C-alpha cells in the first residue's frame, strides 16, 4: 500500500517559483510586462532574490577566502629583521604585524607625543631568556634607524620553548669545537642534523614501541592479578599462585625494560654531544642541543626553492606529527584521525537507523495523528541545541550505559573508568542522535519522490510490499538517501559543543586505532579538529602564535569535510548511474 501522504508533499522537482498563479506562471508574467506596475512585472522581486543570493555568496566566498589566505600564509618562512633601539637594546625577530598609533614615552606618565608613530609586532622567540614570545617595537624607540636584515640570522624551531632567533657561533661535538664561522657552523649543522634526528627518531621508536610494549604487558599482568583478587579474594590459594606468576612476569619485564632504558640512554648521550653555540641579538650566548632542534634555516639567505621546501616541510609536520608544547606547536595528526574516525563511526550508526525509521514512517505506518506527531517530533529534534544532546550523551551513554558496562566487563580496572567516561563510541552515538533528523527527513523526501506509478506497477505484477521497497523504491531513492548522509556528515564533523562533554579532549596522542588488539579502541578519548580550533583560539597561553594556527586548522577541517563529502558524492553518482538503466 502506498500512502496518500504522498500527495500532500510537494514534489521538489516541480515546485513553482511564484506562489499561487496558474500553471505556467513565468510565461503569464512575461505577457503582462508592458504598461504594468513595477510590482506586477516582478522586476523588484527578481532583484530582491538575486540580491539575496549575491549577498549569501559574497559572505561565503569572503569567509572562505579569509580562511584560505590566512591558513596558507602561516607556514611561509619570513625574513628576520634586527632593530637597534635608542637605549642600546637590540631586538631580532620576524615581523608579524604593523600598525600606526600615537607614540608615548616609555616611562610613566606616558605622555602622548605629537606625531603618531609606526610600530611593529616582532616574533622574538627565545622565551627561556626573555619570558616573551612577541614584542612591540615603535619607531619612537629606534631613533629612525632602519631595520637590518643580518645575513646569518638563523631561525631555530625547537622541540620545547618555541622558536629561537640567533647567530650561530660555534659547533661542538663533545668538547671539540669543529666550526667557528657562521658558514662553517651552518655547514656542520646541515651535515650532522639529519643524522642526530635519525637517532632521535630511533630513540622515540624505542620509547614508544618497545618500552610501551613492556608497560602494556605489565599493566595486563597487574589487571590479571586484580581479577583473581576480585574473584577469589586476597590471600586465597588461587591468588597466591597468580601472584607468584605475576612476580616472575614482572621481573622478566623489568629486565627487558632496563635493557631498553640502557639503549635510550646510550643514544641520548651520543646525541647530546652535538651542540650549537648561538648568540642572541643582544649578545647573550647560549647552547642548543642538536637533538632538540626540529628545523633551522638562515632566514635571510633563502632562495625561493628553499622557502618552498620549508613551507612544504612545515605543512607536512602539521598534518603528520603529534602536537607539542600544550598543542601550540607540532602537528594535529591525532586530531585528524579522531575527526575522521568519529565521523565515519557516526555515519555508520546514523544511516541505518535513520533509513529504517523513515521507511517505516513513509511506507508502512498508517497516516494519522500518531505519524504526524512522530514527524513533528523528528523535525523538532533538529532544532534542539546541540549542547543538549551533549548533556544527554554524558548522562545516558557515559554515566548509565558506560558505567554498567564497566561494572560487568572491566571491574578489575575500576575505579578508573573504561567506558564510564567520554570516549569515541559515546561521542559518535551522541552525534548520531544529533544528525538523525537530517537522515530521516532526507530519506522521507527521497522515498516520497519515487513515482507512485512505479510502486503500483510493481505491486500489480504481484510483488509483495517488501519486494517493492527493496527492488523498486530503495534503489530509486538511494541518491536522495545518500544526500541525507552527506548532509549528516557535514553537520556532524563540524559540531563541537556536544563533543566537549562526551569525549573530545585537549590532549590524547594515543590514536583510537592502532596495532594493539582489538585495534579499534572505542572507549578512548580522542582529539577533534573542531575542538582543537576552540582550544587554540580561547585557551592557548601563547595566543599570538596560536591565532594563525586557528586558521590553518580551520582550513584543514574544511578540507577534510570537503573530502569526505566529495567521496560520498562520488559514491552517489556511481549509484545513480548504476540504477539509471532500470528507469522506465
Amino acid at each position, binding site marked *: 500500500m502506498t500512502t496518500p501522504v504522498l500527495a500532500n508533499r510537494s514534489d521538489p522537482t516541480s515546485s513553482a517559483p511564484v506562489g499561487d498563479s496558474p500553471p505556467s506562471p513565468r510565461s503569464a508574467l512575461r505577457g503582462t510586462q508592458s504598461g504594468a506596475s513595477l510590482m506586477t512585472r516582478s522586476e523588484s522581486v527578481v532583484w530582491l532574490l538575486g540580491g539575496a543570493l549575491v549577498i549569501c555568496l559574497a559572505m561565503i566566498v569572503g569567509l572562505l577566502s579569509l580562511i584560505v589566505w590566512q591558513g596558507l600564509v602561516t607556514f611561509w618562512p619570513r625574513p628576520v629583521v634586527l632593530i637597534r633601539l635608542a637605549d642600546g637594546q637590540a631586538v631580532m625577530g620576524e615581523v608579524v604585524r604593523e600598525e600606526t598609533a*600615537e607614540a608615548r614615552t616609555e616611562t610613566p606618565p606616558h605622555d602622548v607625543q605629537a606625531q603618531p608613530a609606526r610600530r611593529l609586532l616582532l616574533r622574538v622567540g627565545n622565551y627561556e631568556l626573555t619570558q616573551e614570545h612577541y614584542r612591540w617595537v615603535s619607531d619612537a624607540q629606534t631613533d629612525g634607524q632602519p631595520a637590518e636584515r643580518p645575513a646569518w640570522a638563523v631561525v631555530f624551531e625547537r622541540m620545547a620553548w618555541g622558536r629561537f632567533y640567533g647567530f650561530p657561533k660555534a659547533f661542538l661535538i663533545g668538547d671539540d669545537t669543529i666550526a667557528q664561522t657562521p658558514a662553517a657552523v651552518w655547514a656542520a649543522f646541515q651535515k650532522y642534523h639529519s643524522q642526530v634526528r635519525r637517532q632521535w627518531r630511533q630513540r622515540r621508536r624505542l*620509547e*614508544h614501541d618497545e618500552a610501551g610494549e613492556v608497560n602494556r604487558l605489565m599493566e595486563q599482568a597487574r589487571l590479571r592479578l586484580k581479577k583473581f583478587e576480585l574473584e577469589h579474594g586476597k590471600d586465597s590459594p588461587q591468588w597466591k599462585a597468580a601472584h607468584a606468576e605475576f612476580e616472575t612476569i614482572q621481573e622478566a619485564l623489568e629486565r627487558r625494560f*632496563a635493557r631498553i632504558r640502557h639503549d635510550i640512554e646510550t643514544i641520548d648521550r651520543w646525541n647530546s654531544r652535538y651542540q650549537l653555540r648561538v648568540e642572541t641579538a643582544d649578545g647573550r650566548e647560549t647552547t642548543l642541543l642538536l637533538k632538540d632542534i626540529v628545523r633551522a634555516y638562515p632566514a635571510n639567505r633563502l632562495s625561493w626553492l628553499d622557502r618552498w621546501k620549508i613551507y612544504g616541510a612545515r605543512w607536512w609536520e602539521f598534518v603528520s606529527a603529534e602536537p607539542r*608544547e600544550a598543542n601550540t606547536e607540532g602537528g594535529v595528526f591525532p586530531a585528524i584521525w579522531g575527526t575522521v574516525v568519529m565521523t565515519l563511526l557516526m555515519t555508520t550508526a546514523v544511516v541505518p537507523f535513520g533509513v529504517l525509521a523513515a521507511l517505516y514512517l513513509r511506507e508502512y505506518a498508517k497516516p494519522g495523528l500518531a505519524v504526524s506527531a512522530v514527524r513533528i517530533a523528528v523535525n523538532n529534534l533538529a532544532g534542539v541545541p546541540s549542547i543538549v544532546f551533549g548533556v544527554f550523551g554524558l548522562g545516558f551513554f557515559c554515566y548509565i550505559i558506560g558505567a554498567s558496562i564497566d561494572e560487568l566487563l572491566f571491574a578489575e580496572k575500576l*575505579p578508573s573508568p573504561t567506558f564510564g*567516561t567520554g570516549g569515541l563510541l559515546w561521542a559518535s552515538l551522541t552525534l548520531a542522535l544529533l544528525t538523525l533528523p537530517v537522515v530521516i527527513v532526507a530519506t522521507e523526501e527521497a522515498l516520497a519522490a519515487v513515482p507512485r506509478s512505479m510502486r503500483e506497477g510493481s505491486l500489480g505484477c504481484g510483488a509483495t510490499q517488501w519486494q517493492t521497497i527493496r527492488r523498486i523504491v530503495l534503489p530509486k531513492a538511494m541518491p536522495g538517501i545518500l544526500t541525507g548522509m552527506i548532509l549528516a556528515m557535514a553537520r556532524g564533523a563540524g559540531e563541537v559543543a556536544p563533543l566537549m562533554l562526551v569525549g573530545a579532549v585537549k590532549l590524547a596522542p594515543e590514536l583510537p586505532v592502532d596495532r594493539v588488539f582489538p585495534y579499534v579502541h572505542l572507549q578512548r578519548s580522542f582529539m577533534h579538529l573542531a575542538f582543537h580550533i576552540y582550544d587554540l583560539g*580561547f*585557551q592557548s597561553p601563547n595566543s599570538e602564535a596560536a591565532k594563525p594556527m586557528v586558521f590553518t586548522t580551520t582550513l584543514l577541517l574544511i578540507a577534510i569535510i570537503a573530502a569526505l563529502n566529495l567521496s560520498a558524492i562520488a559514491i552517489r553518482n556511481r549509484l545513480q548511474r548504476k540504477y539509471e538503466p532500470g528507469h522506465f
Partner: protein
Amino acid sequence: MGIAERLWLVPLGFVFVWAQAAAGQVSLVDPKLPSYTPVQGVSGSLKSVGSDTMNNEMALWAEGFQRFYPNVKIEIEGKGSSTAPPALIAGTAQFGPMSRSMKQAERNAFERRFGYQPTALRTSIDMLAVYVHKDNPIRGLTLAQLDAIFSKTRKAGHPVDMRTWGQLELTGPWSGRPISLYGRNSASGTYGYFKEHVLLGGDYKDEVKEQPGSSAVVQACATDRFAIGYSGIGYKTADVRVVPLAVEEGEPFVEAVPENAYSGEYPLARFLYLNVNYKPGSSLDPLRREFIRYIFSRQGQRDVAKAGYYPVPAAIAREELRKVGIEPEF
C-alpha cells in the same frame, strides 16, 4: 580564609631568585629540586578534569611525563575549576587541577563519598593579573578601585561607582570613554578567586562580558582599546599591559613580577592546586605517585615556568610530597 590564603613565602630564602634574575638568568626553578628519575612498572591511563587556567600546565606535565613513560595515556580536560570536585567524586578523573581552593561544600561532598578529605597539592604560583590594552596609560589601581570597576555591590568601600576611564584620572581621548569589562565564566576558579579576594564576596556587574577561556579575556583586552579584564599571568601577550596593583590608597603600586609574587607583596598571588583522592596513611598507586613526583621535580617545575607561572621552592615541594605519603629524596 582571605588574608590567610596570601602567600607567606618571605622566609623561604628567595635570595637566589633575585641573584639569578640580576645576573640575567630567568630560571626560577629552585636548584635544590632533584631531576626526575624514572622507575619501572609505571603504566596505565590518567585523566585530569578541572581548571582551565592550569590546562596548559597540565598538558606540559603530561608531555614531560610521557617522555619518561611513553605508554602512559593521559587525557586532559579543562573546562573550569568547578568541574574538578564532581569528577574526583565520581571517580572519572584521578587529578583535579583547581585554581582556587575547594569550597567547604565541595569538601563535604567528597568526604561523604570517601570518608576522608581530598588532598590539595600546591603545585605552582600564579598571579591573577589585571589586563588592559597595551596603549592604556593607567599607572596602577588599588584593590578598592578594582572592586568599584567590576562590582555593583562595592564591598571594598570605594565611594563611587567607576564607569569611565576619566574617573581613573586618564586624560585626553580616554577621559570620556566607558570602561569595557571582561571576566571569566562562573565555572572558572579565576572567577571565584577574583570574586572572593577583590569583590570580597560581592556581585559582579551585569556588564561584565564573560569569556569562555583565560586566553579569551586577554585577546578581548588586546582588541578592545577601552577594556579591562582579569586572567592568569601565564596568558600575557605583547598586546596587553598588566596593571600594577596596590592594596591601599597611597601605598606604592606593585608590579606583577615574580619577585613580588614570592615576597607576597603582589596582592593577587595564589597557589594553583592539584587535588587528588588520597586515603591518609595509604600509599598511592605507582602511576599517580610518579606523576606527582614528576610535578615536584626540576623538570616538572620547569614546565611550570614554560606555562608562564612560577615554580614552588623545594621547601614547599617537600611538604606537598609528604602530604600524599611520598618521602622526598631531597
